[in-house]
């Protein structure tokens, strides 16, 4: 990737659906996509931490993305999907309803969210991506674990 002229390079996003809304993350942060397994509950953690699962011998924390984003009354189910992300050398999973597509997007199509929204969404959504017929919320995954000291050491 060319750091000098990011505007010129299209970026790739993994888009997914959650509670009827469309979201996406930078594909560079995605390590793998897994089916749902019942995690082991972790006492003493915030409500959006589902627990931990065994990812080939390592202990992987799973965040309930819907709860984390404040989308109420949306439960994970057997049909949920776990997207494993690595951000700032930390690996964790987020639960989504379904993975949709890999999108190649021109950076020009990505806009910062309007003023005031940022505050409300605690910075989880860093930008909006306008495609033909839909608007995709671009998540900034690092905020998921750093905001409110979520998984901060």
């Amino acid at each position, binding site marked *: 990737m060319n750091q000098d002229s990011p505007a010129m390079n299209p970026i790739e996003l993994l888009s997914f659906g959650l509670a009827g809304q469309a979201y996406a993350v930078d594909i560079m942060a995605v390590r793998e996509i897994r089916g749902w397994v019942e995690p082991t509950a972790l006492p003493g953690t915030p409500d959006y931490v589902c627990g931990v699962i065994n990812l080939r*011998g390592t202990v992987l924390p799973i965040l309930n993305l819907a709860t984390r984003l404040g989308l109420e009354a949306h439960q994970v189910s057997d049909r949920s999907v776990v997207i494993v992300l690595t951000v700032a050398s930390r690996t964790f999973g987020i639960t989504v309803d379904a993975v949709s597509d890999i999108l190649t997007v021109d950076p020009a199509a990505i806009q910062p969210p309007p003023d005031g929204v940022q505050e409300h969404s605690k910075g989880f959504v860093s930008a909006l991506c306008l495609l033909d017929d839909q608007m995709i919320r671009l998540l900034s995954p690092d905020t998921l674990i750093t905001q409110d000291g979520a998984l901060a050491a």
Partner: protein
Amino acid sequence: MRQPEPMADLRATFFDECDELMEAFQDGLDDLGRGGGTHETVHALFRSVHSIKSGAATFGFDGLTKYAHNLENTLTRLRNDKSLPSLAEISDLLRASDHLAALVTAARQGSDVCDAHDTQSAAPENARKLDIRRGADEQSDAASVHLKPATDLWKQGLSCREVLSDLGAIGQCEVRLDDDAIPTIETYDPEQMMLTWQIDVTCHTSPIEEWIGKQHAALGLAMNTADQVVPPEVKQPERNSATTAAPTPKATIRVELERVDRMINLVGELVINQAMLAQTMEGTDLTGNLAYGSGLDDFLRLTRDLQDSVMQIRAQPVKPLFMRMARICRETAHTVEKPVDLIMEGADTEIDKTVIERLTEPLTHMIRNAVDHGIEPPDQRKAAGKAANGTIKLRALHRSGQVIVELSDDGAGIDRASVQRKAETQGIIGPNARLSDAEIDALLFHPGLSTAKTVSDVSGRGVGMDVVRSAIHALGGRLMVESRPGQGTRFSIALPLTLAVLDSMIIGAQGHTLVLPLSAIRETLHVRPSQVVELPTSSGGSRRLLRYNDRVIPICDLADELGFSPRRSDLDGALALIVTHEDTATSAIIIDEILEQRQVVIKGLQDGFATHPCIAAATILGDGRIALIVDPYELTPATAQGSTQAAVPLAQTG
């Protein structure tokens, strides 16, 4: 094997050897200090320093070579002197060894201290009493060379004549022959070189240094091996035993840590795999088949043996760490001018190498703190009726699957009033807050709090105990403090024995599978209602206690404590695990069922993210699911305050 930089490898080996030699050197000094040394000990000291010097010269560390050389000369004098070194001399030698160690470290970091002034200024006392440095030799035209060839010099086709004539060419020589080592005629082996020379050359220093360097390049192997008794790496054991009567060290090899770690990981996976296999077998009707059953048992035993052996590779005695701490203690005591005796116990205790490495920094902080803050100045000690010399005790021991490292001093204890005042002025606590002793002690770990009245060189800059505590937590350990006014303070670090395996009891609580260390559990029992006492608490709830033998211990409902389910109201017949700490029952943990007893592989929770304090780690069970490992000591209300002893007053009511 590809060796991109052979010299770098050799150099690394040299520094590893230096560490061992320095350790041997300090051991010897300790022996002498305790009055247990003999002349052989002095010889061993000499050999250690000589080996360091030879190696240093080979790699061109001039500063190190020079200092080691001077120290060697001093030791030669001691060796020739028939009496053992006095206590004052030993303490000088200790300081000299500290300096030598510092030079070794400097050389390792690539900054060989060549400046003779540095070397001199760092050891002024040494110079006065023992003339460890070269002293006048440095400026004038005299140099002293100690020549001790290898015993098998002749077998290697080398001769001393050339060496001596070379020296003669450099300047006027005064040669003294040391024939002490020549045995009696009965045991005399004419093929062995037993002579050493002490040669004082009148010349400029530089050609001598050059010459020594050259000789080492040419004669290097011969000159080095002559005295190498101490390094445990015995490449040629027969040569080693021929040269000396000192105890022959065991054969060792050096292996990259990474390889060992890979092996440990694999064995860990094997253990999980074995458990999975056993679980699968149980699901079939093969369990009745004797051959399968015994085969599986053998497999289990072998896996365990394998795991134990692999873990032992990583385990190392804490001795080098303690030696380093002794040095820091001496240095600090010297800086703050408080005489301090350091007593070390359990230096043979073995801990995982990683743990040892990561303990260095926190322990250094703690030692400095103990000397600077803990021990009072001598006059104050005398006024309090104590010996002028402060005593600091460093102790390591294994206890119930953990390693405990204790650091205690016989100083004034924590000045709790002062700590509280300080915390108030720094705004850490509100004015007139009423705190228990344990709460005040806990303030010591608050970032930014320092109790020393003046900021000294040594400590008191406001970084310290909080850093120590987070370092210990990062290792999966706990730091506890106990203090009695006027009698001293004791810090205990409880660390997991290894970072890898645990003998455990796997239990169920409200549908959740949890793991408890087996070592913590003394007994399991069914609770009878008559054993339970209920006490109201100030917060409006109630606290339940269990009568166990002649004591009363708190009851902890595990599922409730972890937030899995509300507290059960009826304890009749409930299953309780009696948790003991130092043979003292501290709590009864209520669970639903015991599933099995088994060894589990400890998997750390990533980056220690904020979870319940009693969740120590996790493991992967036979079915591939994760189970959490519970630290039962953290469950006990008393230990949550930071002192393991706090449970005692309650317990004594029984």
